[in-house]
């Protein structure tokens, strides 16, 4: 199944300057009962985003009119810690986000995001704070993420920083490939490998 290709993204961003945003906040457990991947975007950050009666909390960033339509989420350090639920990545992707920028990501979230065409962009804490400051100054400020060059740039000031991604995953994102297709082509090799493992049954 191909994922959506990622080349260059220019967009405004939702700022979420909170640290340790865990997967229970990204998508609370009570929303994990679906048997398909659809519809999770509606419940992204549900407990921060909606009042008990289901109406939007006006002061939460996703509900503020000035950021609507952004394709980038900028969050405090250690984003995505906690559960392995891929539903968190489906919620981020389902909401229409293509990239999450933070100064630190939890491992499993990072993998899950990449497997769903969402690019985790890890920047320095200093650059992260610059982005937050720039958005605060102008909510319409644009950010450019160039995957080929592995750079993230604040369009207003031209300040830029590089980010890391291994070349295999980069290739997958640029071309929309998925890991399963790759592994399925190795099935015979895998079957041979399995025969050589120690077994005590």
């Amino acid at each position: 199944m191909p994922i959506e290709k990622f080349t260059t993204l220019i967009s405004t961003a939702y700022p979420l300057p909170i640290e340790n945003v865990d997967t229970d906040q990204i998508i609370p457990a009570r929303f994990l009962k679906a048997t398909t991947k659809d519809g999770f975007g509606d419940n992204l950050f549900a407990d921060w985003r909606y009042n008990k009666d289901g109406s939007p909390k006006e002061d939460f960033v996703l509900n503020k009119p000035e950021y609507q339509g952004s394709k980038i989420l900028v969050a405090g350090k250690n984003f995505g810690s906690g559960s392995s639920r891929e539903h968190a990545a489906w919620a981020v992707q389902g909401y229409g986000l293509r990239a999450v920028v933070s100064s630190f990501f939890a491992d499993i979230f990072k993998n899950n995001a990449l497997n769903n065409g969402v690019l985790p962009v890890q920047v320095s804490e200093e650059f992260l704070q610059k982005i937050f400051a720039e958005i605060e100054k102008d909510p319409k400020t644009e950010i450019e993420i160039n995957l080929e060059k592995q750079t993230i740039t604040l369009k207003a000031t031209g300040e830029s920083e590089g980010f890391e991604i291994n070349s295999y995953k980069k290739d997958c994102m640029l071309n929309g490939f998925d890991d399963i297709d790759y592994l399925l082509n190795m099935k015979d090799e895998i079957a041979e490998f399995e025969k050589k493992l120690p077994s005590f049954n």
Partner: protein
Amino acid sequence: MEGKTLFDKIWDSHVVKSIEDGPDVLFIERHYIHEVTSPQAFEGLRKRGIKVFNPERVLATPDHNIPTKNQHLPIKEELSRIQVETLKKNCEEFGVTMYGLGHPLNGIVHVIGPELGLTQPGMTIVCGDSHTSTHGAFGSIAFGIGTSEVEMTLATQCIMQPKPKRMRINIEGELEKGVTSKDIILYIISKISTGGGTGYFIEFAGSAIRSLSMEARMTICNMSIEMGARGGMIAPDETTFEYLKGRDFAPKGEQWDKAVEYWKTLKTDDDAVFDKELTFDAADIEPMITYGTNPGMGTGITGNIPTLEEVDESSQKSFLKSLDYMGFKPGDKLEGKKIDYVFVGSCTNGRIEDLRMFANAVKGHKKADDVVAWIVPGSHKVEKQAEEEGIKAILEEAGFELRQPGCSACLAMNEDKIPAGMYSVSTSNRNFEGRQGPGARTMLASPLTAAAAAITGKLTDPRTIL
């Protein structure tokens, strides 16, 4: 050439192929699945028109959604019921063994794998659940994965992973009475934070770790993910072999001897080098309690919540947000705070030793009247043993009720939800906002500390009731 770590030995022997500047293709020996993170993976196989690569390596159990009362009745909540039924249908269609609701071997996936002897030293093990790290207690490489990776593993028995860095955490010396393995892991996380292990696979070592039972070791490895680590592991030894011997799926006869001979080779060489190494003194560890909304926000039970000045400036905003959710103030003393609920259970502390520890502590006391307590065994085997050993009787005598097994209030996907604003002392693994129900306020602790809270109705040093 320098020696190898235990982690390297197991990882390297399971690499089918290394992709240059990319991940390794890692062969997976054991794949556990449950109802929440597998339906979309099976759907993926169906869309691709492919089968499960080797169904014998997969075991399924519904655990996250199931009720802990009246399990013989249909599940009331429709979406939960559909998920559990979907798992059953998928397992039938793809030829995967499932221990369903009511089956005598059913239970929390990370409890039944070890108790059935399916988890063994030297294996690679995955599950669509972050607490898969539990199985590392046997000296295996075990870690949680997302649903795309569940699909990958079902389809090819392999997963693509960059090799993590290696860390060793040594706990040396003797634990004080009343201090448990849960306190060790909460202590470590409070020292290195919830991101302190990110990017690493951790080996736990040292004399305090070696002295622990298998179940206590599982509690430690279980929560390695709470410091961000990919997984945690402990080298197998006589304690491990003794635990495994005779279990349903453990090797038998001559195969057992061969297996033990191999398992004895599974240890870190003396001259191996870790990317990071930390050592803590067991004597410094007190019974722990968390006061915030991530597992790193913990302290000794006789301690106070940090003052604002004690917190890094950049983290102060998140710290205050967290305390506001908990209804606490910076600098508050923890002992004596009133609590409403006690939850004993989960893949962290839902095993027989945990129930035994709790029962021994409450024996001769009575549950505080205004505390609601849920005691949930990790599996039917644990439930049965608790009855046979008389634990159930002790609990009932003290005013507690033993429920039926499942993940229960650890993540509140079933009906076991802590009401908004209520304080829960929980033996589970996460105190995130809303984890035990919207608005619920969770304080993580050991079964002993939970017992002390349950009989006094407030946060209490468990050493005072022993």
